[in-house]
Structures are given as C-alpha cells and as structure tokens.
C-alpha cells in the first residue's frame, strides 16, 4: 500500500508529513484555547508591570541612565515585541528531555519520517497559534492603553522579524533539549541559554543602549537576531535595518538548523549504541 518513490519523491513526502504535523500542532493549540487565553492574559500582565516600571524610569529622565537615550514611550513597545516572541516559543527543550530520558523517543524512531523534523513542525504549528494570539493581545493593549501606535512599516517589519526570531528561538531551545542525550537533564544548559538571551538578546534592554564592545558582541550573536532585531524595528524603523536584520536572521537560521541536525545525528548514534 506504500506509494512508490515515482509517485512522490521521498523529500516531498517528508515535507508533506511535516506540513501535516504543523497543521496538527496548530489545531491542537487552537483547540486548547483556554490555555492560549491564559497565556495572553499573562502576557498582558507582564507588559503592564514592565512597561509601567520603565515608564517611571523614562519619566525621571535621570542623567546618565539608559532611558534618556530612548524615544519617549518606545521602550514599552520594544518590551511588547520581545515578550511577544519569548512567550510564543513552546518549551521544546522539555519535550526533548522527556522523550530522550523516558524512552518515549523509541516509538518515534520506528517511523519512516525523521522524528526531529516532525516534532519541530508540530511545535512550530503550536507556536504559530501563540504568535497570532499574543500578537493580537499586544495590539489590543496598545489601543486600549492609548499609547502611540508605531508606524505601519515598523509594525510589519517587527512582525516579520519577530516570526523569524521566534523560529530561531525554537532552534536555540532545540539545541538545549538535544543535550539531554549526554546530560540527561537540560536545566543547567537552559539557565545559561536564558541568561545569554536576557543580556545579549536584548530582553533586559535594547542592545543599541549597551557600551560599544558589548553592543558589537551582542549584535554578532544569534541571541540578538532571535529577540533584539525585532524589538529594534519598532525603536528605529528603516528599510536598510530591516533588510540587514532579516539577512542576519536567515544566516543564523541555517547555522542553527545545521547545528541541530548535527547534534541530533550525534545523539542518535550514541542512543543506537547504548540504548536509553
């Protein structure tokens, strides 16, 4: 009953299976709409707290503080964008850790489609639902609170860079999860990754405000491409900046995807030799 390769190539069949997994992930995330709604409320609460804090700092206009170098109210939208990305990424590292440690991975390895690609496609589906829900919640908050709406170009470019950045985040957390092949528990690696994202990614503050050397380091890392670039698009929107950011993200996507594939292969080789 299996289709022969002449009917459809193996690669096309793999992509069709990934598309099916993506749709399934999207459908199950939408079916669990109360969870999505809860996440949107959490996003709203986070924004209210963080934005009101930074608004106070900005209002003080203390000489020498970061806030004096930001456009008025700009940091609120920046935080909205970076938190939108952060809260949309599924905890793929926990799923990988659980599957690898518990042996739940084995039934998946007995299928003709690659586990990692299928799993990531499903998680990307779930992430899409979150991006849409939280994006809508963020825009609604902007309107309700009466804040200045960024220019349409800034919104669109932040949206595009945000979606690509979230995909990068999925791959970064995948790398963390894959360390379970060797470490069994991924928490130590996760903590390091989270700190790097916090500082170099610009979750703490826009990297454009950092001292020169730190800014250069952050801008050259995948963490800024994951979070900071999309936030920067609303602080200082420009077509040139958008193109450069998108190009850098594309390069990082390829690098991270390749790294994930290599680490997966190494982990699988170990697993097939030593078992779970």
């Amino acid at each position, binding site marked *: *009953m*299996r289709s022969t390769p002449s009917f459809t190539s193996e690669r096309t069949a793999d992509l069709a*299976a990934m598309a099916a*997994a993506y749709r399934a992930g999207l459908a*199950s995330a939408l*079916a669990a709409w109360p969870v999505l709604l809860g996440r949107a409320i959490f996003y709203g609460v986070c924004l209210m707290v963080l934005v009101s804090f930074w608004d106070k700092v900005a209002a003080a206009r203390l000489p020498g503080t970061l806030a004096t170098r930001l456009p008025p109210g700009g940091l609120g939208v920046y935080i909205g964008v970076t938190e939108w990305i952060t809260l949309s990424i599924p905890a793929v590292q926990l799923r990988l850790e659980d599957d690898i440690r518990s042996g739940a991975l*084995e*039934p998946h390895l007995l299928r*003709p489609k690659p586990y990692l690609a299928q799993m990531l496609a499903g998680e990307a589906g779930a992430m899409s639902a979150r991006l849409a829900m939280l994006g809508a919640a963020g825009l609604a908050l902007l309107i309700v609170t009466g804040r200045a709406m960024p220019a349409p170009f800034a919104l669109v470019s932040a949206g595009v860079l945000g979606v690509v950045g979230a995909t990068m985040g999925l791959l970064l957390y995948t790398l963390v999860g894959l360390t379970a092949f060797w470490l069994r528990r991924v928490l130590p690696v996760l903590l390091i990754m989270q700190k790097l994202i916090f500082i170099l990614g610009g979750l703490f503050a826009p990297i454009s405000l950092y001292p020169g050397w730190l800014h250069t380091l952050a801008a050259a890392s995948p963490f800024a491409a994951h979070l900071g670039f999309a936030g920067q698009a609303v602080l200082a929107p420009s077509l040139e900046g958008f193109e450069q950011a998108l190009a850098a993200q594309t390069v990082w996507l390829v690098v991270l995807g390749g790294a994930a594939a290599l680490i997966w292969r190494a982990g699988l080789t170990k697993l*097939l030799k030593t078992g779970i």
Partner: protein
Amino acid sequence: MTPAITVQELRKSYRFSRRRRGALGALAGLFHPDIVDLEAVAGVSFDIAAGERVAIIGPNGAGKSTTLKMLCGVLEPSGGDAKVLGHTPWRERRALAYEIGVVFGQRTQLWTELPVRDSFALLRRIYDQESAAFARRRDDLVERFGVAGLLEQPVARLSLGQRMRCEIVASLLHAPRLLFLDEPTIGLDVTAKAAIRDFIREQSANEGQTVLLTSHDTRDIELVCERVIVINAGRIVLDQPTDQLRRRFIARKLVTLRSQSPTLTLEMPGVSRRPSEPHTTVLDIDTRETRIEAVVAAALALGGIDDVTVEDPPMEEVIHEIYAVLHK
C-alpha cells in the same frame, strides 16, 4: 515457509563506569573509572517464519526487550547478524519502518492532545499512504476493533483499554507485514485483555501477519502465540510450541479464597497451600491433576467463602519452573 526474521548469534553488551561509594569514591572514579561490561544478550539465534506468532518471554533483565529493540532497529548489536523482512534493522531502519507495526504497552505512539481521527490522519502522511486505500483500511480496522465511537475523542481522554485498541489500529494502518508487541496488555482489566488478545490473533490469522510479542502475562502467550522462546541471562533456554510449553510448564493456577474462618483445609491431589494471611487461603493447583472447577466447587462446599480469584502464576515462577525442569 520463508523466514520473516532470521537471527544469528546476536549479541549486545554495554560498557559502563560503576559508581563507587561516597564522595571520595566518586572523586577517585573520575581518575580511575571502574569499567564494567554487561552482556545483555549473549548470542541468540532463531528463525521466525512469515505468519508465525511467537512470544519472547523471560524475567526482568533477561534480554528480551534488548533483543526486540535490535530487531526493530533502535539498538545496534555488539555482534552477530539479523535480517527482518530482508532488512538489516539497525542499518535500514527507515525502510523497515514501512513494513513493521509496533505497539509498546507502556508508551503511546498517538498524539495525546489530538483526537484519535487526527492521529490516524497524521500517520497516513508519516507512512506515505495513498488517501483512498488508507481510508478503506482505516474504516475496516476501526470497525473490526470497535473504536468508531472513540475517533473524535482526544487520546488523553481515553481509558487505557480504549487507548490500547487505538494503538493497535494505529500500528496496523500502513498494513505492516510484521507486528512487534511489547507488553500489549499491561495494566488492562480482564475484559480488555481478552479483547486485545482476540483482536491480535484474528488480525494475524486474517492477514498473515507475523507477530513477535513480549509479555509477563502467560495468558497473552497462551492465547495469541503458537511458539514461545524463553530467554534468560541473555541466552535462549527454551524454544518450543506453546502447546508443549503449556503442557509442561503453564499447567499451574493460583486460587485465592477469602473466608470468614481464619483457615481453610482442602486436601486434593495436585493442590498445595501457599503461606498467606489469616482469612486468606492461596492454593497452588496443578491443573493436570485437578481441574479448577473441582477445587472451586470443593471450596464453596465448605461454606463461608466471601471471594474467589483465579490467577496464573507470575512469569518469574514459570521461568523458575522451566529452569528447574531443564536442569533436573
């Protein structure tokens, strides 16, 4: 018959560093690790013909799951060779995957958050099945396994018995020639176990599927399989038809009687009493000498019986008995 599985001197050993006691021992282990080799499978050989239903049994740690994993392709052997449907499993895992179905009793292969129907639809893509042919086979299996009423329910909301029926349907959707079943009835109640066994036996008989099953439940083996391979300490200790095994080793039953009086006395041939608590009497019955009905009838005739249960002896005891007989 053509062999579906050929196994020759298959071996698997693990090398690991043994942890020493205490903090100082752990520190010393960093510089001078105590390397230990563990032989999980020590050279097993057997053939399984196409359409045959075979059980691999053995106590925990005997090497049966390791053998099964090597035959599925998720574990590379340390030595020996195996062919499963013409494939070397650990080198051709992907090609083999299209031709085998697998059920792990303790692990789900369905997507727990999705409705059963959507899980099946995803499997169609994973196994590159043509839509119309897949739909016909799915509908046929859904009817045969009685899961039509479960299709719209998320897998997470199914009972264990319902889920297992769906798991077996899922494993058969791509019309595999060989079915690997690892503890397919574990955790199920008596009725669900019986249903699963009937389904597997009928399915295999109807479609000529080869079945390789591991279980700790002797009834799974008796009712599904026609041949039994007993593994212990990584070696095959017995390989014979189930009928012969039943006559020689699975002729015992355990009858537990709960009574109002603290003790019961029942003297019958082939019936021995096991140590038990007051008001509970556990009888070990050799069914070749005395039938279960006769024992239960005699016990009820004594009066004051609150409850009666009939069970198979644990697999460990069966293996122990096999060992005792083989080493006489």
